[in-house]
């Protein structure tokens, strides 16, 4: 089971340049969270601060009961063993082949024999689809393969927390889809806490349990996926829907004139909320909440057409076309009735209404 990361009032500056300030959020144990934000807002800096590679000017990061902004260098190396990190370009050791790269953490930190190491490494290489490239050097493989090799290396020590810096940048859409599926399946399997930094709107809308948005040197919003996808907050809405209308301009912020010119334009309806990407076996992840549960608890109506293929009923029952309200659930939860269309699909999206996984 993963561990929770609690970030409180975190501020990071480089000299006089403030990257972000007063960031507070909690990454719930075992859940997948995504961090979004325009280029240069310090998402990579945030990841590096979480692992203690950069020291924040203010605030605390509590992992496993320890404030890692305060611990000594020696203890920091211990805390870091909880982490697996996938860097933006894989960060493989250029002088070692793929096999040795993946075996590196095992050789450094465990007393396993080469035979045991081989079993683990080959297993991780198979999971990430790298079988057969053991003897290649990082310079000899494609960017997508380097990323997957970096992921395999991050996995060998069974991390409790996995951080991904733009796992999908530079990948084609098909590879991105595979990688997203891999992330979801991995989460179901190892149940670690995941944080993904990405620019890919589709990833952000379908993969995570929680979404955060960094903007203008602060955390604009952090919360469950459904909360942000149904939010009308201009920045959140603009970013999550990849629109030009909104406060974000080409150079980070729009000036007053540009905003004034946009005043009259209608923003239009929010696009529908998609179904969260299921695991390839169809079983719910341990921490996965049933679709619509946040909306239902907070009495928020999703945009029309949300959760296609699912027959969801919301608290006031007014929104969904096929609202078939169920009584007797008691918890105010949502009942999921697989519609005929959905049932006919290859991977039926059926989850226990309580959100407890059966895997």
């Amino acid at each position, binding site marked *: 089971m993963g561990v929770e990361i609690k970030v409180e009032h975190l501020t990071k500056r*480089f*000299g*006089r*340049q403030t990257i972000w300030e007063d960031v507070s959020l909690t990454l719930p144990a075992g859940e997948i969270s995504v961090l979004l934000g325009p280029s240069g807002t310090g998402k990579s800096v945030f990841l*590096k601060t979480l*692992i203690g*590679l950069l020291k924040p000017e203010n605030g605390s990061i509590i992992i496993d009961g320890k404030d890692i902004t305060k611990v000594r260098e020696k203890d920091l*190396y*211990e805390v*870091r*063993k909880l*982490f697996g*990190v996938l*860097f*933006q*370009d894989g*960060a*493989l*050791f*250029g002088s070692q082949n793929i096999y040795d790269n993946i075996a*590196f*953490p095992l050789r*450094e*930190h465990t007393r396993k024999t080469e035979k045991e190491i081989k079993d683990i490494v080959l297993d991780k290489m198979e999971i990430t689809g790298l079988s057969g490239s053991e003897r290649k050097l990082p310079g000899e493989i494609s960017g997508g393969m380097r990323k997957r090799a*970096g992921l395999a*290396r991050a996995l060998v020590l069974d991390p409790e927390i996995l951080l991904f810096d733009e796992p999908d940048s530079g990948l084609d859409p098909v590879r991105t889809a595979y990688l997203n599926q891999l992330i979801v399946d991995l989460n179901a399997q190892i149940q670690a806490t995941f944080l993904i930094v990405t620019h890919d709107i589709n990833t952000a809308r379908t993969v995570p349990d929680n979404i955060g948005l960094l903007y203008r040197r602060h955390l604009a919003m952090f919360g469950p996926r459904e909360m942000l996808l149904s939010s009308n907050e201009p920045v959140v809405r603009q970013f999550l829907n990849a629109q030009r209308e909104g406060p974000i301009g080409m150079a980070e912020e729009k000036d007053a004139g540009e905003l004034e010119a946009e005043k009259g334009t209608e923003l239009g309806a929010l696009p529908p909320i998609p179904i969260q990407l299921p695991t390839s076996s169809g079983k719910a992840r341990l921490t996965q909440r049933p679709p619509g549960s946040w909306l239902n608890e907070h009495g928020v109506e999703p945009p029309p057409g949300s959760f296609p293929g699912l027959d969801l009923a919301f608290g006031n029952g007014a929104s969904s076309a096929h609202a078939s309200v169920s009584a007797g659930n008691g918890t105010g939860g949502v009942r999921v009735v697989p519609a005929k269309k959905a049932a006919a699909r290859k991977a039926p999206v059926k989850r226990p209404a309580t959100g407890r996984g059966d895997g």
Partner: protein
Amino acid sequence: MAVSPLAPVRGAGDFFALSLDVLRGLFKRPFQFAEFVQQAWFIASVTIFPTALVSIPFGAVLALQIGNLTKQIGAQSFTGAVAVLGVVREASPIVTALLIAGAGGSAICADLGSRKIREEIDAMEVLGVSPLARLVVPRVLACMLVAVFLNGMVAVVGVMGGYFFNVILQGGTPGAYLASFTALAQLPDLYVGEIKAAIFGLIAALVAAYKGLNAKGGPKGVGDAVNQSVVISFMLLFLTNFIITAIYFQVVPQKGG
């Protein structure tokens, strides 16, 4: 970004902090023996050939100068002694310094710098491995070892070159050349030369590591780091050379004085 007037001071402070950590790391177990051997071999391979090529003409120039000078003042019998003193005390540490900083240090800096910008160093820290213990300490030791070795090599090549010029080209007698060896020179000359070389190796490797580990801004950043590392270590090495020589003359009594 604004550059604060304190930036150079902070840089020096960071450099000394790194140096202290490395010096402490020299005595920590486990020692990365494989990396040490590999690096020593690597540094030797990039420095030996240029050192040999530099030291032969360097020794020849010294021999020519000394040969002519001693003839002018009628002290031919001391040619050998002066050549040895010149080579062992000054020339070989200087040649060593030039090559260990120019070839060895720049190679270390380029290697660490490119690892830094590829985020390999960060990845290593995240994997719970200290890059100082794993990469920097073995390199520093390897650099010191190779510097000592190079210094010995330059001394031998220089003395042989001096002999060749004096005896064969300038018509001196082998007996006089060899006999004068011991007249002025003494064993501490060689020791101090080797100590100098070890310190040069240490400084060159520390500067290279500091600059390499702080490289930023992509491939150009690595180039800049290597450039600065070579310039800074040259300055430091020549300064150190002067200081050690000055101390040496105060501490060790000189022959025939």
